[in-house]
């Protein structure tokens, strides 16, 4: 007798089905990546930023001089002989003391970028955990923790930072501590707000019902769901950090010689620009503004990509 459904045909169909990939879900992250990739300004900025970072890491291998060595051959006649040129080995020219600006810009970029990235990372990590704990636990703990944020937020930190630098000496660590002390406040507030709306969702309730400990819930369930906000905020914090460090360095209270940063270089450049040594301010300024520009566009792009309201 003849079967209605031929066996081998059925098998083939089953094989086909099995071979076919399971339907791919569209997670927030794949979506966000696609949207980010479609944002031309953000993508260009990312590549430019990447180039600057790579330059600051590897550019030093092409330098003909170190950042502290004085080129005695041109000292005293920097405006004439210290101009940027390939032939003399001073690709970006020399500074007032005859030091190679190329090496100094690279070294300054390293410091500024490091302050930006590490500072933002520390501030964001601490702020996120603080905000999530405060929001999730709620009640009296929450109001005490948030009052503290209010009070710290109202203190004009810049003075305290300068006091810290004067009292404990100028070094990068102190800048990190000082800038970091205040920059976590904003993110803590934002994260707390988000946590308040998250903690009443069903999946948190389910976790609580199955007896997951509080801190595991915060760590495994709350914080991963906040990543969008946190990343956007973090990307906006990096330029803030770079700016803060530059301001302090510009005032001469930041990193110490022979170390430099963009702020120091710009400050030095402005001091000498009336002698016609425009390159001394030009190159640091170029890197500084380029990176800030990139971060603004990247921040915008990330916000557009990760903002769930947009979906």
């Amino acid at each position, binding site marked *: 007798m003849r079967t209605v459904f031929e066996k081998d045909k059925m098998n083939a169909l089953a094989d086909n089905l099995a071979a076919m990939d399971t339907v791919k879900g569209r997670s927030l992250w794949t979506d966000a990546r696609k949207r980010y990739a479609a944002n031309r300004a953000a993508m260009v900025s990312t590549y430019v930023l990447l180039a600057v970072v790579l330059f600051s890491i590897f550019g030093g291998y092409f330098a003909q001089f170190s950042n502290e060595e004085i080129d005695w051959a041109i000292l005293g006649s920097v405006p004439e002989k210290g101009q940027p040129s390939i032939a003399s080995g001073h690709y970006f020219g020399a500074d007032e003391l005859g030091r190679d600006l190329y090496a100094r810009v690279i070294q300054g970029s390293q410091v500024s970028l490091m302050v930006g990235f590490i500072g933002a990372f520390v501030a964001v990590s601490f702020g996120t955990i603080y905000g999530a704990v405060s929001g999730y636990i709620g009640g009296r703990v929450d109001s005490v923790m948030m009052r503290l944020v209010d009070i710290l937020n109202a*203190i004009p930190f810049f003075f305290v930072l300068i006091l810290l630098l004067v009292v404990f000496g100028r070094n990068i660590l102190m800048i990190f501590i000082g800038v970091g002390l205040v920059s976590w406040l904003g993110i803590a507030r934002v994260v707390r707000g988000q946590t308040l709306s998250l903690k009443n969702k069903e999946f948190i309730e389910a976790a609580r019902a199955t007896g997951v400990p509080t801190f595991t819930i915060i760590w495994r369930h709350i914080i991963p769901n906040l990543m969008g906000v946190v990343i956007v905020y973090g990307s906006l914090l990096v330029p803030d950090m770079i700016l803060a460090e530059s301001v302090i360095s510009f*005032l001469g209270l930041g990193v110490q010689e022979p170390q430099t940063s963009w702020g120091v270089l710009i400050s030095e450049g*402005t001091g000498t620009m009336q002698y016609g040594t425009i390159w001394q301010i030009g190159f640091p300024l170029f890197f500084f*503004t380029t990176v800030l520009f990139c971060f603004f566009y990247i921040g915008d792009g990330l916000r557009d990509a990760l903002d769930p309201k947009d979906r």
Partner: protein
Amino acid sequence: MLNLILRRIAVAIPTLLILTIVTFYLMHAAPGGPFTSEKPLPPQVLANIEAKYGLNDPLWKQMVNYIGGIVTEFDFGPSFKYKDRTVNDIIAQGLPVTLVYGTLSFIFAVVLGVSLGVIAAVNQNSRFDYLAVGFTMFAQVLPNFVMGPILILIFTLWLGWLPGGGWNGGHWQNVIMPVIALGTSYMASIARLTRSSMLEILRSNFIRTARAKGIPERTIIWRHALKPAMLPVISYLAPVFVFMITGSFIIDMVFSTGGLGYFFINSAYNRDYAVMMGITLLLGSLTIFFNMIVDIIYGWIDPQIRY
């Protein structure tokens, strides 16, 4: 409303107290005292002087004395470095300068920023809008310590129109560049903020209703859209105020205007702790006070905010 004001004051007082304690403690943790010098005084003499000025008292007592002096007589004590000047003299000399160009650039930033933002939003996607957005992007990456030197380069060195620094009793030629240098990047931020919040408001339902009723566009913008659109801008004014005080330090360094920032940074180099502390407390309290005012105004404008 009263509740809101009281609550704000309740936050402001501990803030001020913490600021005072932190500053006072830091100043005393610093190495060296006012009478330490290259040629050390005989220990007995030093002890006598310190006893005379109450420097042997416990820290809390010194602090109570200090705060008492400020509150009752507005006396910030003597400078550690300037022989003939008290901190009060220095404040009296520097504060007016800072206030003059600070206030002017605050007005400059707010008025120009808001107008620019509103015009850009109303004419969205017009040529003016693109120009305004481009300008604000550009101005934001040129913070005041970059803006100042650039202005000097253009207007003093190349064009020779304006003096490159000094205060000259507040002559307009000396004031104009500090005001622009200090205000521009905040003007840009305010313009961006105004534009985006105005756009959002203009798309909202109540504006559509107003349009449907046939209210002229001008009235809609001024009467209905502007007030709600100003909310984010107002909450941004407090940080702008803080940044402007910080920025005034830079302006004082770049333009040698001789405001408080000049004395603050100089005393930071000289380790003149009394001056640093006086200026920190003065500007700190001003900041805290201003934050409070902004919060109260915000609560007054936006009836949805309830504490």
